[in-house]
Structures are given as C-alpha cells and as structure tokens.
C-alpha cells in the first residue's frame, strides 16, 4: 500500500513538464471531438431547416390537405402527397415482408447450419449485394426483371384471381407491364437483404456459444435452438437491423423510380403502377419551378418525418422489449 502510493507520488513528481502540456491538449482534443459531433448535428438541422423553409409555402397553401389530397396537378398548381405517401409505405412494407424472412434465413444458415467451406462465398455474395449501385438495380429491374415478372407472375396470377373477391382486386393486373408497386417492393427487398442479413449474422455470432451448446446438450433440435434460444437472445438487435433496412427502403430513389410505374393514382392492386415520395422528387425536381418546387420540398419534409417516426418507433419497441 505504502509502496504503491509512494510510487504514485514519485511518478507524479517526475513528470510535471509533460503534465503541464496535457490539459491543453486534452482540451483541444475534447473540443475537436465535440466539434465533429456538433457538425453532424448542425448539418442535419440545416437540412431540416432548408426543407421546412422550402416546403413552407406549400404547407401554407394547402394546409393539412397537402397530406390527405391525392391530386398532383402541375398545370393547375394543385399538390397533394397522399398517393406518394401510400406508395412509399406500401413498397417499404412489401420489401420488409419479403426481405426480413429471407435475411433471417440467410443469417441463421450462415451462423448455424452452413458448412465452413461455403460460409465465405455466401457471406461475400450477400455483402456484394450491398455494393451494387441502386441505378443498376433500377435498370436490371426495368429491363430484365419486369418483363419476366409480367410474363411469369402477373399474367398467370391475374388469370387465376380474376373475378375473385379481394384477391381479385389486390393481385389483378389491368395492364401486365411488369412494373408497379409490387415490383418496386421486390427490388427494394433485394436491396435491403444485405443490410439486415449481415447485421443479423453478426448478432447471432455474438451470442455466447455456451448458451447454444447447453441447449443442444439437453437434446434440443436445431429448430428449437434457433426458435427458443437464439432468436429471443438476438431479438432486440434484430429489430434494430430491420429498422435500418426499412430506413433504406423508405428513402430509396433511383431503383424505385425505374420500376414503380410513376402514376399518380391510388389503386387497390399491388400490380398497378404508383409512385413514392422519393421517386416523385427524382422525377420532377429537374423541371420544377415555383409552387411545384415548394411542394417537392414539402414532400421531402414528409419523408423526413416518416423516416424519423419509424426510427422513434423502433427505439420505443427496442426499449419495451428490453424492459419485458
């Protein structure tokens, strides 16, 4: 004890010169990191501010009607966001419905079932998917996927369901062109799979193997281990991963613009063309002037809000699961 404190004293006395320079360096370092953190905040606030400022004339002109109206008429300067909001949410939802089970399947296969020699190629392929630029997805979707989708899915399915209640509306293609809300959802699903899958894989990898081994030890099957041990352990983090994918799906622009059909109409069928907030902005921004530009900015605000709401919801969900 004594020796230790003495040593402490000695070191303290030994390096006064170095010490004296440290506080100012520390201060500088603290300021620099604070600055970096603040910069992001300032940029974000600046963007939000600019969007609100730009969108304000549209909000003022149409009020709440901007959100609930489905008219988008450039000639008469009448703008409403409803069709784009519905399109954004429905394509993102379809992307999640398709993408999440696939991603979890990939993650579970890679961490639990995959023979070691196959692990690397599969994992690399999945990660490469994330590196494909979205314009490539868009072009592939329009030129390759859409014609196949029209011939082998839309036309046969429409023939089967024609005249049926409910499904006869939802899955009926009046014009089987291959593009539409569902196509956009499928392309989005492919785009978000790498994000969800690789995060989910990392999470599953981090679960202590003692948990898994004890489960196997008491005679659980692989399914039981995954269902009752791994997923509950990873649950909260997986929701986080899904939300990250959802964020990307909501904001994806180029790929969706190519395959969503770009029609400002609400339809009961997911085979019909629609539009999303991001695709509307991408389509019209170039040539927009006056109130149309304000309306596009206002659309941007709404997309911001929707994405923000999703993130908050995810946080709340995660917090609740943690408490439970």
């Amino acid at each position: 004890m004594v020796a230790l404190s003495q040593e402490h004293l000695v070191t303290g006395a030994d390096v006064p010169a170095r010490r004296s320079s440290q506080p100012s360096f520390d201060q500088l370092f603290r300021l620099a990191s604070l600055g970096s953190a603040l910069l992001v905040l300032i940029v974000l606030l600046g963007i939000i501010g600019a969007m609100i400022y730009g969108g304000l004339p549209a909000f003022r002109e149409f009020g709440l009607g901007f959100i609930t109206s489905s008219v988008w008429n450039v000639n008469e300067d009448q703008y409403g966001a409803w069709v784009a909001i519905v399109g954004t949410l429905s394509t993102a939802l379809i992307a999640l419905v398709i993408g999440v089970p696939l991603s979890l399947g990939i993650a579970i296969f890679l961490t639990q079932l995959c023979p070691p020699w196959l692990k690397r190629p599969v994992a690399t392929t999945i990660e490469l998917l994330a590196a494909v630029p979205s314009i490539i997805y868009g072009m592939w979707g329009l030129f390759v996927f859409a014609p196949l989708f029209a011939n082998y899915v839309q036309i046969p399915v429409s023939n089967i369901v024609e005249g049926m209640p409910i499904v006869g509306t939802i899955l009926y293609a009046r014009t089987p062109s291959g593009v539409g809300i569902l196509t956009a959802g499928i392309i989005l699903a492919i785009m978000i799979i790498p994000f969800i899958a690789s995060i989910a894989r990392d999470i599953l990898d981090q679960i202590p193997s003692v948990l898994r081994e004890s489960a196997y030890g008491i005679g659980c099957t692989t399914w039981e281990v995954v269902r009752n041990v791994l997923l509950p352990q990873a649950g909260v983090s997986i929701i986080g991963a899904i939300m990250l994918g959802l964020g990307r799906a909501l904001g994806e622009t180029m790929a969706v613009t190519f395959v969503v059909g770009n029609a400002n109409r609400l339809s009961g069928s997911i085979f019909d063309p629609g539009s999303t907030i991001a695709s509307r902005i991408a389509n019209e921004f170039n040539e927009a002037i006056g109130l149309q530009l304000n309306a596009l900015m206002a659309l941007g605000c709404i997309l911001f809000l929707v994405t923000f709401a999703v993130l908050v919801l995810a946080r709340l969900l995660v917090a609740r699961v943690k408490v439970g």
Partner: protein
Amino acid sequence: MKILSYAVAAGLAVASLTTTASAADITGAGATFPFPIYAKWAEAYYKETGNRMNYQSIGSSGGVRQIRAKTVDFGATDAPLKGEDLQKDGLVQFPAVMGGVVAVYNVQGVGSGQLKLTGEVLADIFNGKISKWNDARIAQANPGVTLPSASITPVYRSDGSGTTSVFTTYLSQVSEGWKTGPGAGSSVQWPVGQGGKGNEGVAALVKQVPNSIGYVEYAYAKQSSIPFAQLQNKSGKFVSPEAKTFQAAAANADWKSAPGFGISLTNQPGDEAWPITAPTFILVPKAPEKPEQVAEALKFFDWSFRNGDQMTMDLDYVPLPGPLKDQVRATWTSEIKDASGQPVFKQ
C-alpha cells in the same frame, strides 16, 4: 536526341501557351432534348478552334433558372419564354435546332408506319376515352389493318420534360377535351397509363408492354427501332416522321410572329408538315455583364449554324432553314449590346 526532346518540349510549351491564350471556355445549361447535338457541335468546334463549350443538360427550367442567375453564359429551353418574361429578365431568345416527337407503339402484327392516327384519336387514347385498339375510331383510319381487341396502355414521361411539353401542347391544339382536361405542360396529370423515366424509360416500357403506346423524341425512336405511327396533320394528310416532314413544318412558320422566335411548330399547315415538330431555344442576356463570354457563345452558335447541319441531320435533328439563321444573326447584332452600346456579335 537531346535537341529533339528540347524541340518537343518547346513545341508543347508554345502549344499550351497558345491554347491558354485562345481558350475561351463557354458554359451553357438547360434542355436535355438537344444535348446530343450541342455536345456533337461542341466537340467539332473544339477540334477546329480549340475553344471549349461545356453544356450541362439539367432540364429546361434549370436552364432558365441558371441564365436568370447569370451562372452560365447561355441557357437552353425547349419551351419558349413569353415576350414579357424575356423583357423582364433582359434575355434574348433564339432557336438553335428543331426536332420531332413521335408516337411509338407495340401492337402485335402492326409494323412501323402501318398505324395511322388522327390528333384527336391520339388525345383520346391518352385521355382514356379510347381504351381498346379495335375501337371504331382507330379502325376508321386504318382500313385493312387488323387491330386486337386488347386494352391500350398509354406510356408517358414521368419526369418533367420538354418532350412532354411539346406533345401535350399538340394534344391541346387538336382536342378540346385534352385542353380542358390535362392541358399542356412539362408534366401533366395523366388520367391513365404508366410513366417511364426519360426517353429510355418510355421506350423500354413500350417495348415490353404489349398493346402500349407512348411518345419519344424522333431520334430516340429511330435509333431504338420502335414502330412509330403516321399522324394526320392540319391539312388532313397522314405523314410519317422524317427529316422532310419536320422541315415542311418549319417551312411555313411565321417566326417573327412571337417575340424571341417563340413560336410553336406543332400542328402547322402544309401537306407534308409533321404535326409534332418543335424548335428548342437558347437564351442569352441582352446587356451581358461579361460581353466577351456571350460573344464567344454566339460565335459558337454561328459556327454551328454554318458547319453543323450535317451533324444535325446525322443525329436526326432538323437544322434551321437558312433565312431563319440570318434572322437570328440579325437579332444578335441588333439586340445584344455591351455597356458602350456596341453589338457584342460581329460577323
């Protein structure tokens, strides 16, 4: 060896000096429709004069915005500005080149040029009033052509574009229902159909979707070999889109009837006139802050008017008629002046 390399170095130095001295780089921005031909002209112009012309195809309204903000030497727009706007912003407008918009379709067994449409039928197809290919009104103009009883899928440009503006201007001229309905503009509220982004998006959809009909720039339709329709012109004749019919549309036009040559060439009289022809315009400031830059821009267009017609036709655009070019040059001389009142453009 040494002497040779010195000579080369000296030559290079002289060359770089002369290029810096004569290089007057001009920048322009705007319409996407004429971008290929402006780029082609610029390339040839650079080869001959060493001067660069840098054109950004950001869209017509972007071009108007940029020239108003004076961030470019010239702006380019497909839709002409009105006389009062030109006056207000102190701009001079002149046409640079013309092009045509054509109706392309995908109907089993109907080849290129076999389908004939009147303006009103075309409008009603895009309006959703004619929804089947074997509609009596289509059949009437197409005796001997077997048309299927399938639904028509109209395909339009989803992005705001000069092509849409020209097409809808024409539809408004020939159809009262269109004029009071969707109207004319660079993007309108389409009652039916699907949107593709850009000419390539529309072309891809038309190629893929059976029984569809869309509209693209002529050059694009020709290069991607999609069947295009004959249209009935104002004189009641059915004509095919080609250089001859585009020129016929321009031949009878009264260019002086609108300020800044801002006339529309859609639905022009003349037996041979293609009904959806359109000029595309250039905007330059009347009293430029940098007269030497504007002078360079005008020199570029003057050079292109004199040397660019073959390139224009190679790319399936239509050169301006000779007398019109002279009128345009006269306008430059009479309207664009520097601070001392001297014309900026010297022949």
